[in-house]
């Protein structure tokens, strides 16, 4: 009987925007009999997967949450004293609920359109100010992926700044965190740099040395003075990087004051959960004079058309999308959501509150140190902040570790005779008592705990005590009551356009639904309180989830093995290329260094290839945007002996399923190369075709695109790679937790499984949709893109299309003709779209002067129609200029976007009505996100770079 009961909960029905009847109608408008007939016309038959994915069918939200609860219950939360860059923290609940768990913050995109991003840009400026103040360096970026990759970026920057060629040596403090050393070594080896590991006191700055990396405080807790080291380095023309800890810098002399040129580290303990490895925001700060070599996104202050201060991303010419293989970094994603949280933690506590937290942590640590000394233990270092290193007898260590385990405590065994204990703000006197009991092996104490405090003097040498002020800007002083904090967060949120207001049709970005159910586990304590190096027997739930996710992703891509380590698409690219490099080397063909890249490729591709030590050779595209097979054949042949790989995006960056993809793969294989598939456009393939089937050897997946991890306003991302069986032995490993293949290509991220705590999002999406829902989603994504292309036909030129005039999951409209006909350029149209309440599509990628639109499957027909109506209406506004009805350089587009302040001002003097400027469509009268600043003068900001909070009078 139950079989006939109606099903009431289908998640696919919620995830997909168009209703079933809309789909029928849209398919008919496109002239096809069914959705399947449309898909058959779009996706080449030769590559189709003509069977269901070997995954279960979709399940309800309740069922999937229950399954996730079961997995979560298999993780055990021990108190972590492991340190190594990851610490317990109290996330202020007002931040957790209103930022971490708030789609108004987590569904926004990278702030490419600053006029509707001022909220998170201000939050990021706060973060940069925090980092700059605490490190004592003038300029900080808006975050990097993790501390280990930030250290590797520092090394690369050092190389660029010193300009040294030939033999180059980079000195690394042996007391850096092991994951940092592993990533630095991996990246150095590829670049031909020699890493010399040792104690900083013994560093010798010979002529080949470009720089040194020290950990401050060291991984074993030691706090040492590096002033002399810096002096010696600078005399030799070398740079010094300090890997450091923000909380310690409230009490310690900041690296910028003792001579460091670069400071990197993890801001996790500023209110961001450990999350079994991430995501967290790593920071990067340096001296003003090196700003043009700095990796990552930098937020800077500029001004808008009205001359008011306005924020936007600065110095973009440093970045990979412009410099391509000349870029020194392939970084695109930052960790915006987490940087926002860390910055807000500082806003919430203010300088005095932060200092109290640091003093408390240090006080507890000195208390513990005193007690351990009284117990007869010797401490390895007498100067420390929050971590002490204890000498223990070899025979005693196992007993201590057992006693710790019995109390659900994780300690770090540095060596068989040394234990490290790292404290954090979540610890109290009870925790210290427990630790003392562990170290006394439950013998009666020879002293009273109460009396210890008086004997515990600070363990920071006078020369290294911080004396300089920090966080003096008003923003760090005004929001300490929860009411003020809440309103500040909400005020910033209201300035930004996120998926909570309107579609974000950014081509190649896949801004689909981030469903609430998928997001729930992120803040469950069983997922977010685990230290990444917690013993495996405490993380069985996570390990099972990873295993299932790896299987799911392998099945979806048609590959044999998956690494979850790379925690951004750019890192996935690098990891994939390193795997290919290791494969060639293993076969004795290490000389294969040529990487073919189509001209239409995203700039990250050539930047990644250059980072992987490859030499880029461009392959031409034909008039339809497809790879020119003749040119490919010639170049593959010309470089046959040295060909390492080709990097292709599929469907192409032009949004077309190339018919010739199999032939492209064959050509490259015949020349001895491997095929790297950029998975940016996987949303057009899931369930319909698989990279592993049509000839690719490795691909990365942007889980933040296709698999529903939200963009977080510009990060986090996740970029796992999937590889064919012959490449599986070369998957990346980790120095603390073994994860990789038998001949790993190195280590690419700080944590073994990247940003582990957001992997349940993708797991949940796949479980909710099942093979049926995933395939349906792909079909509707393609339908939505073609529907938009059809609706805009006759109004705009469609730039590229495949066989039957159809596109894949995105389409490009050409706006270049309006430059001549109306003096309107693509930027003007993009900014006018903001007046209509939408986020503009991708501007000028992959073709300058065009807009690339990707609706995804999650947008309803009503929303697609509103968006198309807006574009058509803008076309009519352009026509008015063409026909002389509107002034050429003084019209609705010239002055877009229009701020509320501007349209209601008494001095309005535009030759068009205010209502048309502000409410150009009926939908905007119901709701729209107003830009809070007018169009921004980017040149002004780049010429006058300011990257920290400016005085409040500037906002008056």
């Amino acid at each position, binding site marked *: 009987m139950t079989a006939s009961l109606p099903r009431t909960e289908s998640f696919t029905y919620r995830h997909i925007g168009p209703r079933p009847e809309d789909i029928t109608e849209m398919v008919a408008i496109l002239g096809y009999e069914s959705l399947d007939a449309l898909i058959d016309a779009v996706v080449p038959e030769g590559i189709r997967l003509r069977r269901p994915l070997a995954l279960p069918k979709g399940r309800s939200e309740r069922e999937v949450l229950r399954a996730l609860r079961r997995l979560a219950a298999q993780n055990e939360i021990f108190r972590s004293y492991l340190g190594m860059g990851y610490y317990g923290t109290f996330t202020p609940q007002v931040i957790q609920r209103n930022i971490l768990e708030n789609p108004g913050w987590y569904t926004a995109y990278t702030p490419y359109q600053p006029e509707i991003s001022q909220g998170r840009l201000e939050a990021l400026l706060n973060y940069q100010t925090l980092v700059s103040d605490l490190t004592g360096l003038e300029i900080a970026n808006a975050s990097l992926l993790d501390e280990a990759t930030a250290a590797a970026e520092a090394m690369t920057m050092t190389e660029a700044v010193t300009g040294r060629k030939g033999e180059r040596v980079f000195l690394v403090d042996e007391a850096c965190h092991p994951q940092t050393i592993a990533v630095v070594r991996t990246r150095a080896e590829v670049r031909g740099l020699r890493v010399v590991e040792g104690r900083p006191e013994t560093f010798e700055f010979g002529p080949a040395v470009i720089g040194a990396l020290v950990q401050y405080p060291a991984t074993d807790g030691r706090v040492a003075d590096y002033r002399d080291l810096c002096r010696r380095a600078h005399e030799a023309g070398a740079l010094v990087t300090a890997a450091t800890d923000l909380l310690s810098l409230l009490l310690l002399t900041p690296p910028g004051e003792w001579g460091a040129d670069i400071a990197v580290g993890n801001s996790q303990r500023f209110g961001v959960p450990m999350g079994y490895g991430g995501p967290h925001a790593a920071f990067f700060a340096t001296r003003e004079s090196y700003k043009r070599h700095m990796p990552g996104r930098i937020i800077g202050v500029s001004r808008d058309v009205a001359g008011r201060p306005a924020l936007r991303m600065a110095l973009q*010419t440093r970045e990979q999308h412009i*410099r391509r293989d*000349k870029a020194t970094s392939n970084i695109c994603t930052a960790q915006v959501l987490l940087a926002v949280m860390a910055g807000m933690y500082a806003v919430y506590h203010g300088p005095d509150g932060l200092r109290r937290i640091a003093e408390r942590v240090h006080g507890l640590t000195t208390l513990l140190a005193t007690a351990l000394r009284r117990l007869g233990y010797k401490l390895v270092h007498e100067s420390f902040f929050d971590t002490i290193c204890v000498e223990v007898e070899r025979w005693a260590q196992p007993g201590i570790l057992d006693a710790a385990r019995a109390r659900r405590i994780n300690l770090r065994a540095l060596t068989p005779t040394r234990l490290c204990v790292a404290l954090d703000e979540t610890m109290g006197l009870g925790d210290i008592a427990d630790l003392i009991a562990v170290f006394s092996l439950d013998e009666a104490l020879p002293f009273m705990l109460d009396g210890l405090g008086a004997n515990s003097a600070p363990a920071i040498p006078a020369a290294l005590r911080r004396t300089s002020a920090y966080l003096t800007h008003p923003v760090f002083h005004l929001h300490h009551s929860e009411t003020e904090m809440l309103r500040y967060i909400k005020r910033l949120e209201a300035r930004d356009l996120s998926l909570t207001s309107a579609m974000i049709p950014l081509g190649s970005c896949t801004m689909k639904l981030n469903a609430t159910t998928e997001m729930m586990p992120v803040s469950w304590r069983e997922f977010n309180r685990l230290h990444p190096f917690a013993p495996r027997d405490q993380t069985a739930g996570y390990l099972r989830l990873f295993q299932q996710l790896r299987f799911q992703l392998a099945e979806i891509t048609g590959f044999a093995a998956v690494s979850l380590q790379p925690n951004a698409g750019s890192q996935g690219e690098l990891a994939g290329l390193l795997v290919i490099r290791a494969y060639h080397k293993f076969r004795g063909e290490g000389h294969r260094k040529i990487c073919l890249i189509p001209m239409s490729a995203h700039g990250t591709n050539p930047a990644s290839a250059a980072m992987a030590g490859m030499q880029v050779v461009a392959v031409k595209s034909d008039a339809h945007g497809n790879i020119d097979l003749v040119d490919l054949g010639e170049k593959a042949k010309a470089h046959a002996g040295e060909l390492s790989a080709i990097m292709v995006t599929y469907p192409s960056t032009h949004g077309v399923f190339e018919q010739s993809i199999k032939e492209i793969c064959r050509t490259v294989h015949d020349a001895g190369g491997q095929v790297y598939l950029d998975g940016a456009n996987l949303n057009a393939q899931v369930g319909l075709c698989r990279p592993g089937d049509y000839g690719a050897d490795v691909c990365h997946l942007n889980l933040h695109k296709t698999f529903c991890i939200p963009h977080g306003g510009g990060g986090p991302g996740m970029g796992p790679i999937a590889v064919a069986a012959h490449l599986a032995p070369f998957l990346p490993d980790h120095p603390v937790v073994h994860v990789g293949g038998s001949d790993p290509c190195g280590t690419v991220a700080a944590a073994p499984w990247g940003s582990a705590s957001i992997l349940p999002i993708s797991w949940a999406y796949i479980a909710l949709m099942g093979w049926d829902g995933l395939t349906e989603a792909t079909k509707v994504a393609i339908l939505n893109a073609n529907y938009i292309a059809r609706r805009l036909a006759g109004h705009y030129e469609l730039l590229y299309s495949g066989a039957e005039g159809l596109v894949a999951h995105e389409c490009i409209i050409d706006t270049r003709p309006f430059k001549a006909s*109306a003096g309107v350029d693509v930027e003007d149209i993009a900014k006018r779209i903001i007046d209509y309440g939408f986020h503009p599509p991708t501007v*000028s990628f992959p073709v300058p002067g065009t807009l690339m639109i990707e609706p995804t499957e999650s947008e309803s027909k009503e929303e697609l129609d509103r968006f198309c109506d807006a574009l058509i209406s803008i076309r009519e506004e352009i026509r008015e200029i063409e026909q002389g009805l509107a002034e050429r*350089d003084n019209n609705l587009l010239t002055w877009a976007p229009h701020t509320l302040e501007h349209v209601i001002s008494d001095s309005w003097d535009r030759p068009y009505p205010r209502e048309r400027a502000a409410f150009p469509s009926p939908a905007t009268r119901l709701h729209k996100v107003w830009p809070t600043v007018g169009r921004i003068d980017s040149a002004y900001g780049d010429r006058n770079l300011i990257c920290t909070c400016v005085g409040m009078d500037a906002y008056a």
Partner: protein
Amino acid sequence: MRAPGALDLDGCPVYPRVAQSPNIPGIRVSNIPDDLQYTTEHEYLRAGAGGVLIVGITDYAQGELGDVVFVNLPKVGDKLAAHQSFGTIEAVKAVSELFSPVSGEVVEVNGAIDADPGVVNRDPYGAGWMVKLRPGNRAELDGLLSPSAYRSHIGE
């Protein structure tokens, strides 16, 4: 001047050289003075006093780049080969390399650009000059473009 991307990708920079100011009209005719020589990479060369040559980028080039925000120039005394990259020029959304039209030694660089990069946009042939060279081989001057040849090179 050439976008680094274009070095390998046949003149296809990913980002356009978008003019940021909403006041720049759509159609622009470049100023190509008749008393200068040009390169296909949009540098100009002017004969200065005492046999010294003055190098900068053309009005067309500055218009294509948009607002210049930074120029990285060589040091006095640097010896350049013909067609050698001697620096970079950055606008808001584009970066290009600068190429020496002829071989020679750098005898002076325009330090004023550092404080005011916009001078390259406002006055490319005057105050926006970049380097002064003492040429190594005057015969190389014969290989440069005339004003009319440059005009047809940029399609104006």
